[in-house]
């Protein structure tokens, strides 16, 4: 079958097929920078948002290769495996957090110092963001947007039905409002019973009850005395008290299903990041008219921010570096950031961006962001993934069982000791 002659013929055919392509490649001017980007923006609003980035990159003369992997955990695992395996993507999405600190320390990312200097990031970016993307004086990631994780969303229809006339402005008013909702036969607090959502809820209570000082001493400094203090115990007790305002169907529920309860007016409140806005918008609801959003109870509540960044795995290939630089430049432009955030439900990282196109809640957020004293990071900004995860494990166990508060407090202190 495979005589030398047939083999030779096959080779000749293959050669012919390849030949015309070869001179074309060699003859063209420097090829357009090609960027393979790994991200986990797969839901409706998210993929619409990332299409804006891809389009902007193409408009700037690049070629965008989209590698979308559902689920942040999976996506990050793939990115890290590919970096270790020596086949890194041109760029990859991470959250604005310590998720990529180890990768930086292992010297596996290219820095973006040039861009950072040109745009004066030291002055421009919020401190919690600089805290995680700047290591040893070098910038290693380009922030794309800001998410605020602990918004209180509420249904105006539910408020009317329960006779609540104004937004609660303290923890006790919040509980009073929840009681009224309960009395009116409405689920007071829509909750998705997954461990990360319990952590979001807890962070909101910690920030609102403890203020910025207690929050930072507990989450950033991991101060054992603070974690074991009576003030921290009060926060844990208030967190647990919320359990009685949650319906029985909450365990395992997705965040967007919880949001749907608020949209339908079947639930009063939900504490969730600003990505929830996409759900309201999809349901045809308008901020301020059908639903309300509050960043916290008081004018000094810490604004817990996070967001998305692109990192650029280390490479010496000049073409790849060119592609990385182009992408970094494209995503840091204010115009793109507004377009991206409008669809994603976040706010732009650059406060000089034109916010008029954004909705009421986003504008509230941008206004708050101008006050630097209110800025703080979410727990992931200060804790390594394993520390944050260990705390999350304790919180979800405490929320779901009869674990005494003393034990929960001690376990959290233990989890943050390492």
């Amino acid at each position, binding site marked *: 079958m495979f005589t030398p002659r047939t083999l030779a013929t096959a080779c000749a055919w293959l050669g012919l097929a390849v030949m015309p392509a070869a001179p074309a490649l060699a003859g063209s001017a420097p090829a357009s920078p090609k960027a393979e980007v790994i991200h986990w923006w797969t839901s409706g609003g998210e993929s619409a948002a990332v299409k804006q980035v891809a389009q902007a990159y193409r408009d700037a003369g690049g070629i965008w290769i989209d590698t979308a992997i559902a689920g942040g*955990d999976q996506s*990050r*695992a793939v990115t*890290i495996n590919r970096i*270790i395996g020596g086949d890194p993507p041109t760029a990859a999405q991470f959250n604005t957090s310590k*998720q990529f600190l*180890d*990768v930086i320390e*292992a010297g596996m990312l290219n820095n973006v110092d040039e861009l950072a200097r040109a745009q004066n990031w030291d002055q421009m970016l919020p401190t919690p963001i600089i805290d995680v993307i700047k290591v040893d004086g070098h910038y290693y990631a380009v922030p794309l947007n800001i998410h605020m994780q602990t918004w209180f969303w509420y249904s105006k229809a539910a408020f009317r039905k329960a006779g609540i006339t104004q937004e609660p402005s303290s923890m006790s008013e919040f509980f009073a409002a929840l009681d009224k909702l309960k009395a009116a036969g409405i689920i007071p607090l829509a909750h998705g*019973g*997954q*461990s990360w959502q319990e952590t979001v809820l807890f962070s909101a209570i910690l920030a609102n009850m403890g203020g910025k000082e207690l929050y930072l001493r507990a989450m950033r400094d991991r101060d054992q005395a603070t974690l074991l203090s009576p003030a921290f115990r009060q926060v844990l007790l208030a967190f647990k008290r919320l359990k009685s305002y949650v319906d029985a169907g909450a*365990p*395992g529920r997705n965040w967007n299903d919880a949001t749907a309860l608020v949209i339908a007016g079947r639930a009063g409140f939900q504490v969730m990041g600003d990505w929830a806005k996409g759900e309201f918008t999809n349901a045809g609801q308008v901020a301020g008219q059908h639903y309300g959003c509050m960043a916290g109870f008081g004018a000094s509540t810490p604004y817990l921010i996070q967001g998305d960044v692109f990192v650029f795995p280390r490479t010496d290939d000049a073409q790849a570096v060119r592609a990385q630089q182009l992408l970094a430049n494209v995503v840091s432009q204010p115009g793109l950031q507004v377009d991206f955030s409008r669809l994603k439900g976040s706010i732009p990282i650059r406060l000089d961006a034109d916010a008029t196109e954004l909705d009421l809640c986003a504008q509230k957020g941008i206004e708050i962001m101008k006050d630097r004293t209110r800025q703080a990071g979410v727990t992931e900004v200060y804790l*390594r*993934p*394993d520390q944050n*995860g*260990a705390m999350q*494990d*304790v919180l*979800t*166990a405490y*929320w*779901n*069982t009869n674990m005494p508060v003393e034990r929960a407090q001690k*376990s959290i202190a*233990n*989890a943050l*000791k*390492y």
Partner: protein
Amino acid sequence: MISLRAHKISPHLALLPMALTALVAYIGGALWTLRTSFTASRTFPSDDFIGAAQYVRLFDNERWLISLHNLAVYGVLFIVACMVLGFLLAAFIDQNVNGEGFLRTVFLYPYAMSFVATGLVWQWLLAPGAGIEGAVRRLGFENFRFDWIIDQEMVIYTIVIAAVWQASGLVMAMMLAGLRGVDPEIYKAARLDGIPAWRVYLQIVLPMLGATSATVFLLLCTAVVKLYDAVVAMTGGGPGTASEVPAKFIMDHLFLRSNIGLASAGAVTLLIPVLALLAPYAYARSRKKRA
């Protein structure tokens, strides 16, 4: 002469790849894990040795302790239930029932399927409001409750049920093979003596199946330690951390929580009971050989 020598060497040559794989991949992997468990490795392995600190941290961790407790409960129930059920199934099929081949296939089938797929089916079956609870309620029993899968205390038992459903068919197949090896004369003799069938099985046949039972027991033990996919598919470790198991803890810390050191410490801890089980077995074997 030459052909004779080749004849002697060839079996060893044939075994070599397997032996090398076992040495390099399994023993080597285990040693590497042991080494990593004494380092401060996070996302990447490191050479920063910190002694037993990862173990201290591991046993300071609420979730790890819950995992170990769950594994113990699951292990005992799963092994006992599988062996009892598997033996009963085998004994009944051994009575020359009609359609034996069909029944065998039905019982063995669950073992052939991935638990990631069947776990989802079990999740629907057990979901409160739908599945079993819903079906019984539609039959008219309005107050029927079967919500173990969202119950802190009971959720681990739902995993036992599903896992027993999956593995007892395999036990049946092995026990049946053992039963078929028993000399039919024994049954005849026992019948002549007027001994009831259940006593024949319990006191005569079962002791004869010692070797088969030991094999089944070892297989089930390894299945217990490996328990992972059933939990991920059915409960994801929830509600809260009520159905967490060590293997899931290890996987989470390896891949999602960027702590290879802690995951390795967990893996080594998990290896200890396996070795504890295997050591007496190996010891008994070596004694037998000498005698």
